[in-house]
């Protein structure tokens, strides 16, 4: 009696309506394209990814560089801070995802996606794919700036790529946290506000900008536990040489842990959100 029974299910779908892997990838592709077209339409949304690395590198190298490494020794600080900034860049871009997804929900288009025969996670995954692209762009600019200011690779190009990759996967895991936050909070401004509150202590209470040895004991303990310190230490070791394994493994453990906890929560929240 139902019209639905007239037509066979289209390719990539079983009779139960389950969505196969290929169909899922196609959907994610279509949604990535949507996000990319949005950027094309609104190029200003790329300013943070383009300018943040430039401003931060200049600021930190010239404002703190002399003080930390001694006057005239800024180039030494470049090799210290740029790997650290790679860690920070991921967190900053990840934070923007939260307010972005919150904003998206204010528009009816999310309702359309959620009434369509697609996996609901594909909307979130597409968002993350595009944001990883933005992270990659920001990291490239950061490294470009770094080289211009005297960054030298003491290891190999492969090590450098490994450092970039590590920052990206860790950044992607952070995105799930901010997506969850974006789906939970009422307004995009609130998401941004909370984001800053979380960001500031994590970024400055770390080994990103300065060695932790001069900090009081309690703060040093905090920075040691801070995953951003581990990521900064890991990429520093990958670029400047030194013991790599410990900090890399800890960073990967954080990445897996954060994703395993927050991704399912975010998808469940997305599924049930009735905004």
């Amino acid at each position, binding site marked *: 009696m*139902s019209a639905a029974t007239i037509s066979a299910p289209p390719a990539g779908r079983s009779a139960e309506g389950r969505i196969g892997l290929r169909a899922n990838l196609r959907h994610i592709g*279509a949604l990535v394209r949507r996000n990319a077209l949005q950027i094309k339409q609104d190029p200003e949304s790329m300013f943070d990814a383009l300018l943040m690395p430039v401003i931060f590198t200049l600021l930190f190298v010239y404002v703190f560089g002399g003080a930390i490494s001694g006057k005239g020794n800024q180039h030494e600080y470049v090799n210290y801070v740029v790997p650290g900034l790679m860690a920070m860049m991921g967190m900053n871009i990840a934070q923007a995802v939260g307010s972005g997804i919150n904003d998206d929900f204010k528009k009816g288009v999310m309702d359309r996606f959620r009434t369509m025969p697609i996996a609901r996670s594909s909307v979130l995954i597409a968002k993350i794919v595009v944001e990883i692209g933005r992270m990659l762009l920001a990291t490239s600019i950061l490294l470009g700036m770094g080289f211009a200011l005297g960054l030298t690779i003491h290891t190999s190009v492969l090590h450098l790529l490994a450092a970039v990759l590590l920052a990206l996967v860790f950044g992607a895991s952070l995105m799930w946290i901010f997506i969850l936050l974006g789906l939970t909070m009422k307004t995009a401004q609130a998401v941004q506000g909370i984001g800053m509150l979380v960001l500031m202590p994590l970024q400055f209470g770390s080994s990103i900008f300065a060695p932790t040895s001069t900090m009081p004991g309690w703060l040093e303990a905090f920075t040691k536990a801070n995953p951003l310190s581990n990521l900064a230490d890991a990429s520093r070791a990958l670029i400047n040489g030194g013991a790599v394994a410990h900090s890399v493994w800890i960073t990967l453990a954080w990445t897996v842990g954060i994703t395993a906890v927050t991704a399912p929560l975010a998808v469940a929240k997305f599924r049930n959100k009735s905004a």
Partner: protein
Amino acid sequence: MTSIKQTSGGGNAVEVRGLVKHYGPTKALDGVDLDVRQGTVLGVLGPNGAGKTTLVRVLSTLIRPDAGSARVAGYDVLTQPRQLRRVIGLTGQYASVDEKLSGRENLYMIGRLLDLSRKDAKGRADEMLERFSLTDAAKRPAGQYSGGMRRRLDLAASMIGRPSVLYLDEPTTGLDPRTRNEVWEEVQRMVADGATVLLTTQYMEEAEQLADELTVFDRGRVIAEGRVEELKAKVGGRTLQIRPAARGDLRAMADTLSRSGLDGVGGAVVDEAEGLVNVAIISDEQLTAIVGLLGERSFRIAGISTHLPSLDEVFLAITGQKASAPADDDTASGTPSGSASDETLEEVAA
């Protein structure tokens, strides 16, 4: 996927039983039953907050009900949401298109999400743009569209997958009359193509234009249902407004009509402030008879118009009748044409 009408003739495309959805103390849906027959349009009429949108959101799998069941095209909203989403289209009060994407990109994206090949998605997008007169604006971002264009794009997006059941949630709220008519025409075309439509609206006029049957919602409950004509008869059909050329004729005109004994014509009511005589009528024959009678008696008429009852009047009529049914004291609102007019009528007759 093109064949939709094949199976018309009988079954219900939508079946809702005992649906309940509470938001804290608010009962958005408080035990709703309704059916939409295959290939017909059901109008769900009700004021803001009556639960119309909650119903649509449950039926489109956006929210889960607290109790009760609902089936759409044979699929259960709770246990078969994936299959259900393949056969529905939703157009909400707020256009659900991506404002930063062009009209064509929006439709192409929807096509791809519905598993059309690149070529088919392009073709279908262009076909829909043509049909909804959006070809000229195809490359502009939807955010720059006028309200009517955006609503048309939204309808087009809902139609890409050739849904067999379409939900229209207040599709013309906030639109100007011309745009509203365009949307109505599109809906009528979809119905002619065989779609089953569940339409929510606050406007009696819209319900009358589009719906085969009506369900009236109030505070999460169905308070009346039936064919549009049946409900109109209950409510008193249209109001005929006559403006006499001379204000002094108001009372005499009303008096004449009230005592005319014309078949089915209710009491005439004087609206002093506006200089009008209002008469409830249910057929065109009555309109002709009234105008004829007034001509016979040599009344000079400056203006004449008919109005459908407003949602308020519909409510008053329906709830008024309900209240009087179990023989309680409230007899004043007993007449179908109901409302505040009775009082004035007595005044005239006295």
